[in-house]
């Protein structure tokens, strides 16, 4: 195969991946605290054998995917009115105890398990500073302050139940997505500063449909252009074979 075909193939493979990541962003437009991702590409320069009679070296650039950049911008806050729905304003994550160890999430839709322990919909316990947090019906109205302090009020008397563990990381982008809105990392989790926990709200997905759809159109057109290029190259090859065969006659 000649270089044109290979270069356009690398471009087509890259656009396939870009399309997949847009599809994933759009599919998660209603997932709380989902962070959109965009793939990044770079050129991979390869030397090619110069044609006969050509002087100097020539090179072509292939397309190479190098990574996906997570857009960490905070999603819009949506009021749900849920007693155990929490949004984090600022750079912080809730810590959750799963079967595979500690995981982190910004999706603060929690519920109580059968023992009254605060947990995710998957049944993983939400971590607090100092011991697990159980809420019983006898505790009364549960209130969570901006710093994550959970307190209950019954008949006018207030009692503190615990404090939600909100953590932050030195390199947020290096957190690995695990699905189920969870992240894992080997980094040390530091207590988050300058964060605000808001009760009765959830952080929505930060996917902006306009951007995704226009990116999608661009990718489609790029793909079309590259595919036309391969097409042109293909017909050129066919023609040259035809012409050369005629000369032989």
């Amino acid at each position, binding site marked *: 195969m000649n270089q044109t075909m290979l270069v356009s193939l690398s471009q087509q493979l890259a656009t*396939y*991946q870009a*399309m*997949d*990541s*847009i*599809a*994933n962003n*759009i*599919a*998660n*437009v*209603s*997932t*709380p605290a*989902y962070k959109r*991702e965009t*793939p990044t590409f770079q050129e991979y320069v390869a030397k090619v054998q110069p044609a006969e009679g050509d002087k100097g070296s020539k090179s072509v650039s292939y397309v190479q995917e190098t*990574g*996906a*950049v*997570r857009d960490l911008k905070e999603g819009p806050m949506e009021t*749900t*009115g*849920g007693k155990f729905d929490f949004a984090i304003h600022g750079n912080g994550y809730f810590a959750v105890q799963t079967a595979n160890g500690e995981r982190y999430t910004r999706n603060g*839709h929690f519920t*109580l*398990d*059968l023992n*009254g322990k605060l947990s995710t*919909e*998957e*049944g993983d316990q939400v971590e607090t500073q100092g011991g697990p947090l159980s*809420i*019983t*019906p*006898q*505790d*009364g109205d549960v209130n969570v302050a901006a710093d994550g302090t959970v307190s209950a009020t*019954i008949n006018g008397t207030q009692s503190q139940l615990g404090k939600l563990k909100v953590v932050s990381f030195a*390199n947020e*982008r*290096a957190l*690995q*997505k*695990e*699905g*189920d*809105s969870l992240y894992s990392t*080997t980094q040390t989790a530091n207590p988050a500063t300058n964060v605000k926990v808001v009760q009765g709200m959830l952080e929505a997905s930060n996917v902006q*449909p306009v951007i995704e759809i226009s990116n*999608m159109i661009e*990718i*489609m057109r790029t*793909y079309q252009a590259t*595919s036309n290029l*391969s*097409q042109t190259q*293909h*017909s050129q090859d066919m023609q040259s074979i035809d012409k050369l065969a005629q000369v032989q006659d």
Partner: protein
Amino acid sequence: MRALSIAATGMQAQQTNVEVIANNLANMNTTAYKTQSPEFQDLLYQNVETPGSQTSDSGTVLPSGIQLGAGVRTAAVYRITTQGALESTSNTYDFAVQGPGYFRVVMPDGTDSYTRAGNFALSPTGLIVTQDGYTVEPGISVPANALSVSVNTQGQVQATVPGATAPTTLGQIELDRFPNEAGLNALGDNLFQQTQSSGAPQAGVPGAAGYGTIQQGFLETSNVNAVQEITSLITAQRAYEMNSKVITAANDMLQMTASMGQG
């Protein structure tokens, strides 16, 4: 091309979303109905290049890596158990719970179920029963000659009978609470059943600490907020549309691929 299947998961999720909204709107006038809401979560990721893996011997690492997502799934459809508004009906056997707690009802098979819909009636034998004829525990019998029946906020049922000056106490209605009421299993007919995730019921007297009070002559309306549901419906419809656009685009790309090299 994964975009096709990813967008399909997105369409499925939005379909669930619309179904939940439809059910909420259909139950807008159902006594004590609680709004449901779906929760979506991203699916597992395929690690093409793990973030933090080494890129050279000198210890430089990948800052972000490549993680390919597989779409979205519905993790749960949960109930929002906020109090509904109380509507005056002036009916003797209409009870509303103001605050937390459920009435306990005996099912025909002898098991207990729980409800907040207090639109009760009398059975042929004078028992207080639900609209389906199931006994409301603890099985309070109202004498046939009772002139009036009253229930106070603490759930005490009293009747005035002819010839008596003081009202007779007939019984005490109890309320049950659960550690996790969102975990109750909905049976339909406004009834709920205890599950593994709801925890065991804890009976108590209405008005006691942590329990609601009973209002006679009132019914709890549904807590569906029509404006919010319609807004969610529009959002869901648009999201569905966008996912279908992705399918169209992915299909177009595949078509171009298939037609490459022809002619």
